[in-house]
């Protein structure tokens, strides 16, 4: 009952005219920042942080949280309409969102993404409201061993699924991981893989550089070649019947939405993991549990619902360790944390006791931001569909320009733009030979989490590898991950031994 009392107090704060206006503004700005390839919630929050000094701290964090939410919704938009994931969290959304758009079902994919995001966000906020402090202590129990086990699981769900060309998939994962290790070896403090001693490699290879290169340039060149300059996307005609049919189809995916929301939330609250592994695992689970897995990757609504429900659930979840422990669960929450410090708030275990008004105002505004985000997102869908109607020679040119600007913006270094071009051309050539590239993009996100966790664990255990199996949480996760990793090998063996098994 105490919670309901707090929450209604919170709503009074969230619905103050200034705060309400800031929620609206934050959602709209976030939506566009998220929809822009290259800019995600991290950039949006970091860049607009100083602009929040005009308002009191509670309003400021409400604005930034709304922006965060809007950007999470927006990330799906560029994944679906342009095929370029705006942020790592939206990579999994391209798997089915892009094929849907190419089939002429962009409206279905966009609505599915919006509603799934809303669903995931809502479940997550409810869990947040009810169980924040106890969940925080679970998050604290996650040490390096558990984080590594979790990363292993994220990869396993992915490897176990993509079975087209096994050596090429493994190659793609490994090259992504190698790229992710460029820069600095944090354990020894030594520079690592600084190719040709070019100073720009010192900051490592940013995920966005690879993603924009592959999707914004490589994939675009591939599309131009395959389409022979003709329009590839069939035009979308919206009418009431179509909308109703879309919604009916969407309703059938409710199970996926529920499971993905829970998976997303729990992965999200773990420090360091963030929303990307959550979205990836949900996609994997959805594909594994469905009756017709062969449809996934070719334009299945469930394949959009799963990652979108999960990444929104995870982004709310990531705020939990930030508020209750002062540990950011994702890069964006790290910046929010910085903002709170600037405004004189001390995130951590005492926050819920010392700053009740702030905490509950924020939670209530998350409910409001989520609601506004879905409404605003859906009302902008015609605009995004109109963009798709542009002649391809114009759309492609604009995408190249956005890739250039988007590749530059995060690090503000031309080195990254050149690297992006290189990845684009390389990605285009590999794409023609059926090398899957999404695994590389995901590997570059997960690699920098997995490697230090592995080495820190081993350092702590004096090089004893059994530590991953003997701890209560990491043990079962590691075992499941290894089974999933070996699954394709078993399938292969089975195929060899029983040639007619398929």
């Amino acid at each position, binding site marked *: 009952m105490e919670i309901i009392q707090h929450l209604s107090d919170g709503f009074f704060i969230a619905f103050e005219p200034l705060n309400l206006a800031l929620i609206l503004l934050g959602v709209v700005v976030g939506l566009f920042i998220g929809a822009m390839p290259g800019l995600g919630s*991290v950039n949006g929050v*970091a860049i607009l*942080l*100083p*602009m929040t*000094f*005009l308002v009191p701290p509670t309003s400021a964090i409400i604005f930034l949280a709304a922006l965060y939410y809007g950007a999470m919704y927006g990330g799906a938009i560029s994944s679906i309409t342009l095929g370029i994931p705006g942020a790592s969290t939206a990579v999994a959304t391209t798997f089915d969102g892009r094929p849907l758009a190419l089939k002429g079902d962009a409206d279905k994919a966009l609505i599915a993404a919006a509603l799934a995001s809303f669903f995931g966000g809502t479940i997550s906020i409810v869990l947040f409201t009810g169980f924040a402090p106890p969940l925080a202590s679970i998050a*604290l*129990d*996650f*040490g*390096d061993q558990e984080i590594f086990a979790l990363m292993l699981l994220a990869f396993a769900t992915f490897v176990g699924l993509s079975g087209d060309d096994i050596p090429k998939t493994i190659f793609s994962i490994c090259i992504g991981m190698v790229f992710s290790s460029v*820069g*600095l*070896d*944090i*354990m*020894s*403090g*030594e*520079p690592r893989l*600084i190719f040709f001693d070019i*100073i*720009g*490699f*010192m*900051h*490592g290879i940013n995920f966005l550089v690879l993603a924009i290169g592959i999707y914004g340039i490589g994939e675009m060149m591939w599309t131009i070649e395959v389409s022979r300059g003709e329009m590839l996307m069939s035009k979308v005609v919206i009418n009431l019947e179509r909308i109703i049919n879309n919604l009916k189809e969407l309703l059938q995916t409710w199970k996926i939405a529920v499971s993905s929301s829970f998976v997303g939330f729990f992965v999200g609250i773990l*420090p*360091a993991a963030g929303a990307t592994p959550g979205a990836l695992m949900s996609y994997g689970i959805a594909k594994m549990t469905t009756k017709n897995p062969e449809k996934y990757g070719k334009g299945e609504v469930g394949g959009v619902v799963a990652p979108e429900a999960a990444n929104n659930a995870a982004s709310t979840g990531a705020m939990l360790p930030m508020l209750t*422990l*002062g*540990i*950011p669960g994702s*890069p964006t929450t*790290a*910046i929010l*944390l*910085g*903002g709170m*410090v*600037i405004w*004189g708030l*001390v*995130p*951590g*275990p*005492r*926050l819920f006791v010392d700053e009740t008004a702030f905490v509950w105002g924020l939670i209530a505004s998350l409910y409001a931001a989520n609601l506004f985000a879905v409404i605003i997102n859906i009302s902008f869908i015609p605009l995004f569909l109109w963009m798709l109607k542009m002649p391809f020679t114009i759309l492609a040119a604009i995408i190249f320009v956005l890739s250039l600007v988007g590749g530059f913006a995060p*690090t*503000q*270094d031309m080195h990254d733009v050149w690297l992006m071009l290189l990845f684009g051309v390389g990605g285009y050539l590999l794409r023609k030979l059926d090398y899957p590239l999404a695994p590389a993009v995901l590997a570059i996100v997960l690699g920098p989490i997995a490697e*230090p966790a592995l080495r*820190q664990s081993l*350092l*702590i255990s*004096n090089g004893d590898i059994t530590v991953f199996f003997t701890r209560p949480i990491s043990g079962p996760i590691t075992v499941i991950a290894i089974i999933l990793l070996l699954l394709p090998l078993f399938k292969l063996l089975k195929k060899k031994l029983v040639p007619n098994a398929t």
Partner: protein
Amino acid sequence: MRILTTKLILTGFAIAVSFIGISIFGEAVAGWSPKKPVQFIIMAGKGGGADKMARLMQTVIEKNKWSPKPLTPINKPGGSGAEALVHLKQAKDPNHTIMVTLNSFYTTPLRQPALGVDIATFTPVARMAEDTFLLWVHKDSGIKTVDAFIKAAKAKGKNWIMAGTGSLQEDQLLTDFLNADYGLSMKYVPYKGGGKVAKQLAGKHANSTVNNPSEQEGFYKAGTTVPLAAFTPSRLEMFPNAPTFRELGQDRVYFMQRSVVGAPGMSSEAAAFYQGLFEKVYKSDDWQKYRKKKSLMGDFLSGSALKDYWKKEREIHRSMLKKMGAL
């Protein structure tokens, strides 16, 4: 339609020309001030201590409109700050390039001589603070004094885990101090940021840390972690029960500088502008409040005094790194 476009273009052109005119004639204002947005390089990643401070300074400047053009923060954490140092050294427009630094300002050029960076050529702007370090343990360990800490760490030998930020940087230097002074063999495990380090301790994945107060503040207030002693000349107001190592007979004082530095080759007028700007920031209520809250020490330094301070610190770090075998 076509006529309208032509008209628009012409009007736009006319407006542009008149503005160029204004800007040329408006030049004669006293003193130098930035003509374009100032690159405000941060020598560390997003969300870290240096980043938070840089964004606070930027916020204070914007709030009071002290700079006619905004400071635009750019994180360049690559190679422990090597990338940022080289960027500054090669700055095309030194008058519009400044940087927030920490102690990697000394250690990185020493450890990577190939960069060819000499920090004595950089333009001193302002020392805004010195961050302090304390020795922390978890409250469940039952350790309340440094003596008890030594006893426990000795018993565990190399299984005593000291978590810290980065490798061969501040936290590891301090760990080495402690190992040398008290004959311990604690194992140092590096993490990416102070926040992660603090979490390792709170989650009992590490036995001790040497965090800054700002990194442990939340857990300290909740009673989860306990400061044992401070690497400062005198006790900190916030932690009156934690003695200094000096009181305990070990002369170990170590700070993390929080300074602003200009690119080499910055004109003296521009340097004067930034020095004045950051002095205002230093004196602002916001900054003073922040200093107090985060137990920061170190007064405002600028000009040649700051340069002398850098040279002195660089030598101190050189000898420390040598002792560790890192040079």
